[in-house]
């Protein structure tokens, strides 16, 4: 192998250029730490550009990988079939129970006038690439901003949550898998409603840090997303608690990112909380023990309306401040129409989006 290698033993006289590129490389790390937008934009542009090639290449390779992956299953098809039939019968019973309970839940919500859960919309996307590198676990989807995908949205397959969108290009998006070093999501351990943080560490089983000191989750407990922070919808199935053998807890994920082909990107919007309508008791004058002043009528807030104080003529007798002080109160008493609070119509979703 080395016979043909003609070794050039002289130094390349590269000491100064080497020092310069070393400094540039360190600057690149520091700049990337401070602001990685440029790199992210370049990555999404590249994946957008290579999307047709990726789709073309990944289809046969994924097929071959699935074939290799499932090759061993051929020999246990009969046993698997029997097992699945039994499981199917059990699941039908559970389905009936779930439907009955769901109806009952709806009735209770109606009786209690409970706020319904926010509706979820989703975009189905195909996995066109996946990469498992020492410091990054990711997959690339064939849908991007043009399909309504935004960074931060949860990605699920038919078994459970896989990860979150962390880069969205126009036609492709990158998913940060739950196993990635940078992944940290708030979860809830059932039963017990124990709040915890699930953190990836580039192994197949993320770690689990419970927030409550007295909480004692056990292996076998179910883990779902808690929805804290408002980015990820609550209740998405994530995995099962397992012991790591040294007293710590880890999570065996339900979803298998290596074999997922089609995934859903869940768009979760919490409806904006509506503040209660202000009453006269809430006004600062009431809090100070004074008689409340009516809120200004909507038409007086228009910029075309003349400011009443500035337009008023000078008082002939400046020694009567009490008359000034009582005038608004009288006006309040004689003009009940002006007590009408401003329009309480809740803002529409569009308005809220614009405000955001």
């Amino acid at each position, binding site marked *: *192998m*080395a*016979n*043909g*290698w003609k*070794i*050039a*033993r*002289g*130094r*390349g006289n*590269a000491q100064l*250029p*080497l020092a*310069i*590129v*070393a400094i*540039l*490389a*360190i600057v*690149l*790390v*520091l*700049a*990337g*730490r401070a602001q*990685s937008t440029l*790199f992210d934009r*370049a*990555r999404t542009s*590249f994946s957008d550009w290579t999307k047709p090639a*990726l789709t073309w290449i*990944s289809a046969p*390779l*994924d097929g*071959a*990988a699935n074939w*290799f*992956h499932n090759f061993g299953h051929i020999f246990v098809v009969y046993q698997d079939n029997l097992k699945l039939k039994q499981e199917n019968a059990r699941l039908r019973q559970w389905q009936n129970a779930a439907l009955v309970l769901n109806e009952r839940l709806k009735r209770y919500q109606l009786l209690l006038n409970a706020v319904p859960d926010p509706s979820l919309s989703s975009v189905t996307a195909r996995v066109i*690439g*996946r*990469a*498992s*590198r*020492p*410091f*990054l676990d*990711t*997959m*690339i989807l064939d849908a991007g901003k043009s399909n309504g995908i935004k960074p931060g949205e949860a990605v699920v397959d038919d078994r459970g949550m896989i990860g979150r969108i962390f*880069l969205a290009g126009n036609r492709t998006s*990158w998913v940060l898998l739950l196993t990635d*070093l*940078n992944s940290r999501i708030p979860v809830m351990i059932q039963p017990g409603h124990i709040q915890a943080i699930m953190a990836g*560490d*580039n*192994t197949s089983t993320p770690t689990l840090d419970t927030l409550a000191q007295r909480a004692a989750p056990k292996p076998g407990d179910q883990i779902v997303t808690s929805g804290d922070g408002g980015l990820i919808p609550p209740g998405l199935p994530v995995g099962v608690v397992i012991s790591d053998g040294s007293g710590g807890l880890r999570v065996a994920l339900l979803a298998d*990112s*290596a*074999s997922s082909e089609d995934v859903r990107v869940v768009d979760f919007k919490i409806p904006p909380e509506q503040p209660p309508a202000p009453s006269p008791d809430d006004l600062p004058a009431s809090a100070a023990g004074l008689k409340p002043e009516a809120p200004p009528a909507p038409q007086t807030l228009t910029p075309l309306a003349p400011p009443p104080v500035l337009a008023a003529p000078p008082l002939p007798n400046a020694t009567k401040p009490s008359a000034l002080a009582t005038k608004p109160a009288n006006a309040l008493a004689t003009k009940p129409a002006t007590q009408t609070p401003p329009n309480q119509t809740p803002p529409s979703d569009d308005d809220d989006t614009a405000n955001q």
Partner: protein
Amino acid sequence: MNALNDRLGWSLPSTLAAAIPFICAIIGAIIGNMPVSLVGGVLPSPLFALMPIYFWSLVRPDLMPPWAVFTIGVVQDLLGGGAPGVWTVAFVATYALIDRERDSFAGLAGFGAVLGFAGAMLTAGLVAYLIVAFYYFRFPPLSPIVIEIVVSVVFYIPAAYILNFIHQKLVGPLRSDF
């Protein structure tokens, strides 16, 4: 053609030959970061971009200048999707080590050359690991980078044959001063 080359002061084949190591490394970065896997992501893809850097840094250092190593590192970082600059610094640090210890590395042949690449890969992996630890203020698990090093070293054995073939058949004949 030769008269034209003499008049211009450079020759196209020679320039092409000088660019081949750089192009090989860029192709290596693209292949290594292609987001497809035959093993379902169980094994990481080898660090193909470092192989031409190591090979030509020893064989013909004039064809693998520091700016080329820097650019290859940037491309590797861009395509890799990780923290920016990690592999750039790792490649430059490895190049600096090879440049400093060229006499030791150059004396290696056969299995020794593979061990030499293992040393270079270890340096790159260690530097990348430390930068990532600095980046996220915590030490990531060691096993993924160890697997990456092992996979890359194993893949270097066939890759060295290919690089040697390219060097003998393309780089050498195209360069008149070889």
